[in-house]
């Protein structure tokens, strides 16, 4: 059976997936945070190889996605939305749309049951309300990233952030802290305004009702809750491995391409 690797080079973390046939063998993610990117990629890759207990030579295809141009040992590259759709279908087969929220961008993707991308929307230009921003705020508030979601759920009087720019919004947050607003309410407020933007993106992309959330922020329960509160007509699904959707998708596309190439060779 084909063994393949998918490497999703994001702007804040590198994610690696190892697959065999229809199954995922291993997943690993390494946050970049001020480290040299090539080294992080190599580390993440070798750790994942170890976890999957496979040798490099076993791999039929190494596929990259995201900003994967850095990866010298890749065989092919797939665009982010193609891979996220594929990954989402693998993890959450009932979904027909993906909301991928990463460190700098959010993407809304509509797809069919075979993960064919039908339509999409993506944030560009201003990075406001991205994962990076949330990360900065968390650091500022002294809250570990994993605590952000649970804490936000406790907010009962959310304070909304008005600024569109992440830099200026940080200042808003600073002001809130100094006004004595609870971190839970600040976070909830941020989640609500982020959710608003993402829903806008989703609606603009199409109208599938079952939405898979992928990317780093899928593990943020506060954001997921805010999304659910924002629109009752959509069903949001997450999976413990949602963060890896891009890497998983890349691996599966890689395996697929390998088969196509092999059969071409054969004929």
């Amino acid at each position, binding site marked *: 059976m084909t063994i393949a690797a998918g490497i999703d080079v994001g702007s804040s973390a590198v994610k690696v997936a190892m697959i065999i046939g229809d199954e995922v063998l291993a997943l690993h993610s390494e946050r970049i945070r001020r480290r040299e990117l090539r080294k992080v990629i190599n580390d993440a890759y070798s750790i994942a190889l170890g976890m999957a207990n496979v040798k490099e030579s076993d791999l039929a295809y190494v596929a990259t996605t995201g*900003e994967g141009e850095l990866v010298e040992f890749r065989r092919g590259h*797939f*665009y*982010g*939305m*193609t891979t996220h759709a594929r990954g989402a279908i693998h993890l959450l087969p009932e979904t027909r749309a993906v909301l991928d929220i990463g460190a700098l*961008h959010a993407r809304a993707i509509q797809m069919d049951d075979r993960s*064919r*991308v*039908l*339509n*999409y929307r*993506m944030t*560009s*230009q201003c990075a406001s309300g991205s994962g990076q921003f949330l990360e900065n705020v968390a650091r500022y508030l002294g809250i570990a990233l994993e605590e952000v979601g649970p804490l936000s759920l406790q907010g009962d009087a959310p304070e909304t952030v008005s600024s569109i720019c992440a830099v200026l919004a940080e200042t808003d947050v600073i002001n809130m802290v100094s006004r004595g607003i609870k971190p839970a309410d600040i976070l909830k407020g941020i989640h609500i305004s982020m959710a608003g933007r993402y829903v806008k993106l989703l609606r603009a992309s199409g109208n599938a009702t079952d939405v898979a959330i992928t990317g780093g922020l899928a593990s943020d329960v506060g954001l997921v809750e805010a999304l659910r509160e924002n629109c009752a007509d959509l069903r949001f699904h997450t999976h413990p491995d949602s963060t890896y959707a891009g890497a998983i998708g890349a691996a599966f596309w890689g395996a697929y391409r390998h088969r196509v190439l092999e059969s071409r060779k054969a004929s």
Partner: protein
Amino acid sequence: MACTESECVADCVRRAETLAFADPPPHSIGYMPIYVPRELIHAAGLLPAGLYGGGDRLEIIRGDAYFQSYICRIPRSTIELALSGHLDRLDGMLFPSICDVIRNLSGMWQMLFPDRYVRYIDVPQNFDPAVGGRFWRHELETLRRDMERIAGRPIDDEALRNSIAVYNENRAAIRELYAQRSRAPWRFPLSEAYLVLRAGNSVPPEEHTALIRDYIRGAENDLSRREMDQSRVVLAGMFCEQPPHGLLVTLERAGCAVVDDDLFLGMRWIQGDIPLDGDPLQNLVDAYLTASATTASRYSPEGHRAKWLLESYRRNEAEGVIFCAPSFCDPALLEQPMLVAALDRAGIPHTEFKYSEDTGQFAVIREQAGTFSDSIRLWSAS
């Protein structure tokens, strides 16, 4: 003289830059992107010089001082060029009614350069020959008198007819280029065609026509160019502020072959040939009323724009449409939802993103265009 298409492109680049970055030829009249009747300028012996912004290499200092961040880029680079002396040798500037930005820019010009010739050209939004036609004729007559004054010589009907013929030729050459590109986009990539067209802003139309023909011949004969596995797309939204060259390269690398577009509409807003017999000025008037391209800047009585787009999609056997408009371009962005709705009704795939003439980062665009092309290519068979 035989030349290869790459020599020809290089030549175009060099010539295009003579206007923006060095001395423009003497006796030329600058004009903003669309709806300027260049024939009238040409007939007076003046060179019509198209100003489509400053590209992505011009450093903007004074230009930004006059424009808030939420205004598109083209007025700032145009002002920058003017204030840094690059446009000093123009004999005047024409500002057609494209949008509020260009309109107000005409007033800024009046204030900043009180001694120079500036004219705002009000293009009618009424297409009744007795009403809008009359108004347009009045505008053109005024323009004719102004050009005569600047050139110091009368524009007789014969001269005007001759200029119309020259531009008919030029438009025909451009039409041929588009037809060729649509037939074999890998042979005539947009990233080259764009440069060939751009040169037309600063060289006399006769020379430009020759350049285009040279290029077509060169590229046709280049056997090293092979058909590529790309998706055929129509590009819409770029009629005024021009995209950086890197954007076009990015699109093509991401797998999109552009088979039609609305770049440099100012050179081809009159579709087909203008008749040479009869009153040449009236022929110009009628050409506007009956044979001009619809754009976002014009009132579109019965959804003409959507019709144009669907027609182009079909005629060019395209597989998708990319809306690529300058950031903060009101006309293009306001009409986009209407066009999108029309495409949706017709079941045509589309995607959209924005740029500015000095965009330097193409990661997002590459991803979007790449995914778009992927989704057409990987799945079009099924």
